[in-house]
């Protein structure tokens, strides 16, 4: 039942709304990328912008990521605030030099004499059998390299506020939105991502995690789609009498280690859920945030529910076998050998 004062938006619409509102008040903001103008973005996140702002500020590019992401760096250093789309994060392979060697390093190399106020928005995730070059997450790849802020909203409220915050940031922000949360029916949308979004412009702080469900027995930490899997797992655990807390990281860089530590200090147990590859990534970093700080808070060894270290397979059964899901999270709890709570 929808409450009368609710204004439910998809992440796609929330992103477009934030962009439009910022473009109305800041003439230096413009959007460029592949199919972002007439098409409104493959994932709907620039829909309606061309009509309001025209082709000069809503700029379709050639299929030429190295050039237009490099150009965004140059424009950002010259006083503009580009919002650039890398259609699939998987495509980073053709243009990463512009991203990690220029966008991410020029503030530092200039000793802070330059600002690089640009947002690189890119789609991640999937789970709809699009094969191994169209739905990786690559959170760890981007978050590993210094000089980029990295955010990944799990719902439309955060999506709008993070987009506004990212566009106002003087440092580069990689905005990783999840295809399965976009509200595009053809991608099998997660309903929990479509939530109430205030009409007025607002920001969500970059670098601040959110406890989205309070609990006592275990902390399930994740981002993006993983948050929804964690919430579903928490419900299943509740049926078993287990009280799970769920932490939505919201932002990977900066990483809110304090919120993670505070949650695990309370629950004593940690499960990290990550749709990105398991090794050398987000899940290990979250666990290290706890263990290198105070290992004594842990009542059990932490667990990870992440994508195994294999390329993403096409066949439906293989793909779904690899993906994290609520049952795997529940199984992780069982494997922890945790004592049943009193």
């Amino acid at each position: 039942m929808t409450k009368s004062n609710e204004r439910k938006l998809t992440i796609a619409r929330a992103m477009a709304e934030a962009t439009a509102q910022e473009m109305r008040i800041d003439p230096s903001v413009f959007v460029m990328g592949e199919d972002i103008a007439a098409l409104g973005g493959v994932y709907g996140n620039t829909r309606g912008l061309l009509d309001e702002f025209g082709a000069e500020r809503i700029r379709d590019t050639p299929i030429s990521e190295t050039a237009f992401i490099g150009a965004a760096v140059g424009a950002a250093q010259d006083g503009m605030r580009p919002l650039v789309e890398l259609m699939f994060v998987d495509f980073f392979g053709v243009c990463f030099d512009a991203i990690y060697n220029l966008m991410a390093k020029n503030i530092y190399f200039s000793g802070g004499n330059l600002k690089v106020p640009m947002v690189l928005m890119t789609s991640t995730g999937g789970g709809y059998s699009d094969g191994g070059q169209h739905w990786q997450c690559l959170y760890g790849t981007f978050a590993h390299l210094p000089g980029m802020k990295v955010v990944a909203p799990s719902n439309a409220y955060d999506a709008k506020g993070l987009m506004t915050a990212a566009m106002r940031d003087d440092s580069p922000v990689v905005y990783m939105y999840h295809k399965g949360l976009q509200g595009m029916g053809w991608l099998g949308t997660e309903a929990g991502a479509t939530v109430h979004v205030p009409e007025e412009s607002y920001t969500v702080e970059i670098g601040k995690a959110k406890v989205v469900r309070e609990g006592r027995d275990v902390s399930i930490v994740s981002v993006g789609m993983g948050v929804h899997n964690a919430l579903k797992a928490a419900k299943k655990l509740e049926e078993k009498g287990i009280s799970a807390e769920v932490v939505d990281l919201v932002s990977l860089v900066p990483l809110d280690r304090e919120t993670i530590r505070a949650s695990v200090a309370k629950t004593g147990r940690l499960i990290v859920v990550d749709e990105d590859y398991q090794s050398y990534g987000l899940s290990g970093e979250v666990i290290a945030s706890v263990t290198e700080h105070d290992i004594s808070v842990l009542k059990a060894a932490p667990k990870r529910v992440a994508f195994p270290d294999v390329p993403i397979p096409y066949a439906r059964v293989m793909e779904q076998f690899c993906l994290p899901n609520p049952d795997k999270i529940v199984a992780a709890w069982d494997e922890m050998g945790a004592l049943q709570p009193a």
Partner: protein
Amino acid sequence: MAPTRDEQHWMYRNMVTSRRFEETIAKIYFEGKSPAFNMANGPIPGEMHLSDGQEPVAVGVCAHLTPEDVVTATHRPHHRAIAKGVDLDKMAAEIFGKATGLSGGRGGHMHLFDADVNFACSGIIAQGMGPAVGAALSRKMQGKPGVAVAFVGEGAVNQGGWHEAMNLAAVWNLPFVCVIEDNAWGISVAKSAATAVPTNDVRAAAYGIPGERVEGNDPFAIYEAAGRAIARARAGEGPSLIEVETYRLAGHFMGDAEGYRPEGEKDGLFEKDPIPAMRARLLKDGAASEEELAAIETESEARVEKAIQFARNSVDPAPEDALTRVFAA
């Protein structure tokens, strides 16, 4: 249009300053690096790419630019930086890795940024193309004056990013000029072994823009070609491509034994050193007197000496400052 008398003096002054700067850097570079050559030692550690011989390109182009125009350059940046007006004291200090350097020692000789004169360089081939095209886009969108020039080497044209940026500049009709400094060598690989066409000006046809080749490392001819391209960009008529034949009198980097060069090639190059050639031409044309040229040379040397002293006398950065300025303040 030929350079004015003042412009000719400016060009000669910047060529001499660049050469004196690099000669001084070259000497200091070997301090602490003998008897065993270790790149990490001495007051100037790391790789060092000198531009001796390529000065005419920098001055011929930058004579048309003002501080508000944007330049991106390469791993071999000093001649362009000097011609663009980068603060020489801070640039020297950056090369020495000092706290007073352009970025407080975070960038080094391949990563010089001077926002006051819109100069930036970077260490990977063709990397400056995108940012220069983006700066040109920014000026066009803001309706602000200024053009963007990307200096690249002739090896850069074989990078995909070079082509992408050329196409983007052309399809968006941006105030952009790409200047290719053809020194004939990509480290040890000759241009003829790397590039399918003898000269790269013909590549302009692929973008439907003017392309011009300047032979002979001649600062006057470069000035004229650059003048045409930059005027076109300023008039909103779109990008241009210029390839300039130039010579690398030094190795790719300091310590390069240059065994790949055909025997005698460098002897011939030194005979074509553009600085004595320009000096002789200024005298012959009556564009400068011996006294004027001597004064320019003395001033240039003093300017370099001051910068080097500034760098030597500056303090090292605090090591822990390495952890700062990753993000904008």
